[in-house]
């Protein structure tokens, strides 16, 4: 791996006190790969989440997948497959259930979702606290980014590939569903496909995020890059690219900070995103400072 004759760059990397650990240690390489996969898929999903004004829906859904993962854990122990399948099923059940309630009763989407996810969360906490020990609980809540094995990496990579492929296919209907849902319903039958397809992507990305960062932090890597990017750019394509770049950068920064300062990893990644967010809030072209003050000069037309 680190034969200096083969690659002087690698030798420099290993010798570098800052970046060295990423090459030297297998668990750091896995953590970085996992974070790259997660950033590539969760950040674009987060941009659409923001544009659909569903950022808090993402948070609610993250809590909703807990009991599914917990039941998987209850039946099969700390098994990646069982917890993944359980989490995806619970997330889809809450998404579809609250969608049906919203479409067929007087309750709006936000309230019906809140009702479902609170029930789901209470059930999850009950199951975890009755059967799990505190170490497992910490794994579920805060993720295991420094202990990703090959199977978990494969899962994150697979979810990333499915997400990017689906977003490429659903791109136009999804943009129209965000921009003018009534028009999409009028000209085609794609509106429910776009809506539920997107919720499906949200759920699998939350499950991916939950393996790496834990249920509580998984939404961070979706919502924060999108919100930060919105301060800088005005168009959809730049938003998607910038949000992804921010997620990648913050993953790297958070991982290294957590290694060198010996701090828990997933909060460090989310806090790195938070730092970008706060700096952008203050200094970006569409941030708070510029927003408060009109430009000192103006154009003729």
């Amino acid at each position, binding site marked *: 791996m680190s034969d200096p004759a083969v690659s002087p760059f690698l030798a420099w990397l290993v010798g570098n006190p800052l970046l060295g650990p990423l090459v030297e240690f297998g668990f750091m390489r896995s953590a970085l790969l996992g974070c790259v996969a997660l950033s590539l898929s969760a950040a674009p999903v987060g941009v659409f989440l923001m544009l659909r004004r569903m950022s808090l829906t993402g948070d609610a859904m993250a809590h909703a997948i807990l009991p599914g993962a917990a039941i998987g854990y209850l039946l099969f122990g700390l098994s990646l497959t069982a917890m993944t399948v359980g989490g995806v099923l619970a997330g889809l059940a809450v998404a579809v259930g609250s969608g049906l309630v919203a479409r067929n009763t007087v309750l709006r989407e936000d309230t019906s979702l809140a009702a479902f996810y609170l029930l789901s969360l209470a059930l999850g906490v009950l199951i975890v606290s009755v059967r799990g020990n505190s170490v497992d609980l910490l794994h579920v809540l805060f993720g295991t980014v420094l202990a990703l094995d090959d199977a978990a990496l494969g899962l994150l990579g697979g979810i990333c590939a499915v997400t990017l492929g689906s977003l490429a296919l659903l791109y136009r209907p999804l943009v129209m569903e965000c921009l003018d849902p009534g028009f999409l319903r009028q*000209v*085609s039958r794609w509106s429910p496909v776009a809506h539920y397809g997107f919720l499906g992507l949200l759920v699998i990305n939350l499950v991916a995020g939950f393996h790496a960062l834990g249920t509580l932090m998984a939404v961070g890597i979706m919502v924060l890059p999108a919100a930060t990017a919105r301060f800088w750019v005005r168009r959809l394509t730049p938003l998607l690219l910038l949000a992804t770049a921010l997620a990648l950068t913050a993953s790297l920064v958070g991982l290294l900070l957590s290694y060198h300062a010996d701090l828990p990893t997933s909060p460090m990644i989310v806090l790195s995103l938070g730092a970008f967010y706060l700096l952008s809030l203050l200094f970006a072209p569409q941030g708070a400072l510029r927003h408060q003050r009109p430009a000192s000069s103006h154009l003729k037309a």
Partner: protein
Amino acid sequence: MHPVHPATTAPAIELSNLTLGYDRHPAVHHLSLRIEPGSLVAVVGPNGAGKSTLIKALAGELRPISGAVGGLAGQRIAWLPQHSGLDPTFPIDVRRMVAMGLWHRVGALGRLTAEHRRLCDEALASVGLTGFETRGLDTLSGGQLQRALFARLILQDAPVVLLDEPFAAVDNPTSADLLALLHHWQQQGKTVVVVLHDLAQVRAHFPLTLLLARELVAYGPTAEVLSETHWARAQRMQEPFDDDAPLCAASPETSGEGHAHTHAHPHSHSDAHPQAHAHGHSHREEALP
């Protein structure tokens, strides 16, 4: 999917004993009439007369309580609702928003080609928005946004166009431009149905008018429909629904298409304007006072 080049020949729209409403309260009551292909029709009436409800039913968005809308099945319809669900803060440029109107040619998975972009720019040019192609949607004024929505309607190129108060937030030069576009559509053979409240505008630009006050007051040539007597009759419509109103006695069987239905049914609101029923029939030539 829809055919690539839709037939430009519009269908005749046939409403037979159409009753529309919410919670069993009729918002449009036993309406029967025929809109010939290629008509340019204004729909007018007091607030709560059922104009928007009728447009929604024509667009296929609302299922009738009874009766039927004939002639529109399988037709492509371009519909601009009164309150469009468009999110004007969405980060997209004007050309791409307008390109939504090409859905019937591009579909969900197609790509916008240079040809499509040219069509978008032509449509923007014909509503006077040249130079706005790459501007963000959030930088448009209310009137400019309405022009952009009309450009989207142009690209939809549907044989039937339904518009609900399209000039509500638009200045005079803009509405003059858009009215010219409506005439152009009619010359192309499209059927255009427009809900309006400005009677002077209706008199100046619309050959046919449908005066609605839940029930049909009159339908025919504009000058004849917009008479003082007709308008006074429309104004007497009772606006709030009556929760204690008895069931309407006129079932779909008892009142056939094109006929005034039975005059005896006793809802409270029909008592307020008993004459309206005498004009319940819909043929244009008979709609004179």
